[in-house]
């Protein structure tokens, strides 16, 4: 099935690039959505069956793949709205490029989730860079160019880091007399690996994948990317692409957890996670650009996820739950942001305000999204964050826990002051005649995503819990 999906996705993506007819374009998109959903459904029913030698849909992969299907369908529909309705300067060529790279991004991310070989993961991560850069550069202006240049450059360097890490990994494998680099053989033989090379390799691979996951040190590229990409593409970059980074780091960490180096790896991850939350705090308390604020909020959540992973115990379960819920919540904010931009034609916090007056339904989405993203009680993230704190407490990392709590409070303050300005305080100068009427239907998908996040956290179906528990078993 993976073979069929990959071939289908590449054909559709290539066809989209060269096709100029609108009708064919949207038919292809519909076919792709159907293919994606069928693919997700198929893999869901065929867990742990190896395919094409390099792919194995294990629990974590299937979990993220299903989340991807749930997010990708509304994002594609909003991408269609974005191109059709509100952008007058779109040409058939730019439209084809936009959807072609979107299809490529979605399908390469879903393949990354299922790959069971580190080299295959690496190749498809590289394809995500390629397709993401085409999406970022959609608007062809100087600032988009700057964003894409930084993104490409930093991703190129980090992909090289991952490659160096893989080389070191192969050295450590050779010392153990193994030449099979699939994750399964790595888990099985983890204790035989040479610790020195494994350490170096983990360091390089971790640093490299932080560009995708959005952690210190390589997080910068992602921020510019999410800011400059059109909002539907930003929603993808802020959710499924981060998950691709997460799953790669998770698998590598699972290898480390079978060795004596787990403690050391935990220290590395705690440092990275704490620094990420710190950076997010610094920027979110003084940021004036709403879209970048959402992007920094993603950095904060990824920091929490990696802290939960490093704390161990219930933290691993919590961080997987956290990343799934984050996948549902963040796109809804980005999709709603698109409507904010249609109303005010500006990203700056100084030009917006009184959103309740101009788009009531959308304002409710922003408000609920804010509550969800800051993990206040009705939000699903509250559960997972609480569990992460509990795991930090149980791991006797009290000092880290207190620091994180203080930083999170500051983030809520910064996030909240901007959001409430957007929602309630009237803007200084605004021409009310130019404001378009926005249909309430535009907000439907965001309500569904946010509602789903609440449902999954407070009343999780048995199968969802079982999948997460299976995924946790990777880490011993």
């Amino acid at each position, binding site marked *: 099935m993976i073979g069929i999906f990959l071939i289908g996705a590449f054909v559709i993506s290539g066809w989209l690039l060269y096709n100029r007819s609108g009708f064919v374009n949207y038919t292809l998109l519909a076919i792709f959505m159907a293919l994606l959903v069928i693919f997700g459904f198929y893999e869901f029913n065929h867990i742990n069956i190896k395919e094409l030698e390099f792919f194995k849909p294990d629990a974590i992969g299937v979990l993220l793949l299903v989340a991807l299907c749930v997010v990708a369908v509304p994002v594609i529909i909003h991408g269609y709205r974005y191109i059709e309705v509100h952008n007058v300067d779109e040409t058939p060529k730019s439209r084809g490029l936009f959807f072609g790279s979107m299809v490529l991004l979605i399908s390469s991310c879903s393949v990354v989730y299922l790959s069971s070989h580190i080299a295959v993961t690496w190749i498809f991560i590289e394809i995500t860079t390629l397709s993401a850069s085409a999406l970022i550069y959609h608007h062809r202006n100087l600032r988009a*160019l*700057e964003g894409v240049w930084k993104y*490409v450059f930093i991703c190129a360097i980090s*992909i*090289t880091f991952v490659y160096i890490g893989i080389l070191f990994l192969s050295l450590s494998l050779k010392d153990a007399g193994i030449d099979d680099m699939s994750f399964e053989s790595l888990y099985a033989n983890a204790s035989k690996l040479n610790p020195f090379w494994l350490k170096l390799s983990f360091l390089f691979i971790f640093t490299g994948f932080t560009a995708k996951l959005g952690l210190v040190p390589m997080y910068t590229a992602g921020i510019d990317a999410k800011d400059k990409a059109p909002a539907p593409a930003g929603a993808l970059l802020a959710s499924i692409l981060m998950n691709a980074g997460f799953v790669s780091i998770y698998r590598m960490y699972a290898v480390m957890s079978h060795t004596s180096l787990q403690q050391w790896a935990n220290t590395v991850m705690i440092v990275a996670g704490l620094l990420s939350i710190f950076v997010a705090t610094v920027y979110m308390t003084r940021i004036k650009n709403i879209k970048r604020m959402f992007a920094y909020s993603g950095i904060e959540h990824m920091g929490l996820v990696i802290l939960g992973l490093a704390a161990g115990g219930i933290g691993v379960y919590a961080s997987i739950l956290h990343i799934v819920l984050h996948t549902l919540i963040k796109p809804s904010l980005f999709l709603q942001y698109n409507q904010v931009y249609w109303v005010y034609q500006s990203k700056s916090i100084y030009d917006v305000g009184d959103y309740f007056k101009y788009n009531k339904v959308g304002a409710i989405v922003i408000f609920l999204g804010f509550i969800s993203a800051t993990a206040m009680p009705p939000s699903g993230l509250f559960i997972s964050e609480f569990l992460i704190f509990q795991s930090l407490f149980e791991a006797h990392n009290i000092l880290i826990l207190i620091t994180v709590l203080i930083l999170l409070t500051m983030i809520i303050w910064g996030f909240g002051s901007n959001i409430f300005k957007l929602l309630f305080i009237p803007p200084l100068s605004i021409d009310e005649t130019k404001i378009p009427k926005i249909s309430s239907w535009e907000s439907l998908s965001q309500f569904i995503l946010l509602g789903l996040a609440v449902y999954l956290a407070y009343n999780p179906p048995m199968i969802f819990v079982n999948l997460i528990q299976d995924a946790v078993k990777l880490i011993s």
Partner: protein
Amino acid sequence: MSLLYISIANRLLTYLNILVFQGFILFGVTFLTLNKISTVNLILIMLETIVFKAVAVPWFINYVIKRNGITREAEPYLPNFVSLIIVTFITVATIILSSSIKDVNLDKTFFVVALSTIFTGLYLIVTRKKIITHVIGYIIIENGVFVLSLAVGNEMPMLVNLGIMLDIFASVLILGVFFNRIGDLLKDPDIDHLRILKD
């Protein structure tokens, strides 16, 4: 040697010549070390080192420089003398580092060369002002990675080989294409122009 030279070189053309030189060295080294490889593999490596690294990439960068009328100065942030000392320091440090590693599967000489090349590339990226020198720094890192893959294994599995091809393909394609675009939009390609996006 070429690393020391590039640290003090001032003109972009010199940078290109160094890239060509490194490409040939890489081919020589690979040819000498990989004595039990098949013909197909050899042709592939030759294509990559000579045709790609030594000819195509420098030619392309030269084309970009001419097309966009980039001035020939490299414009480093630090004086050349300091650069020279830092690069020497990097090399010495990697020698000390690698002498502390004991591993039969590792070729020490290559390891030293590779690490110092990678770090010099990073150093070049950090201290030079022009975007094109960033690209050159990145390509130097790639060369270092290539040597590293030689250090890691003499038999060089096909996978590693494929990885390098893909690496170069993607990086140069992306960097090259976008640099072309940057040249169209910015008449004077300095990184100072790329400072709008910040908080």
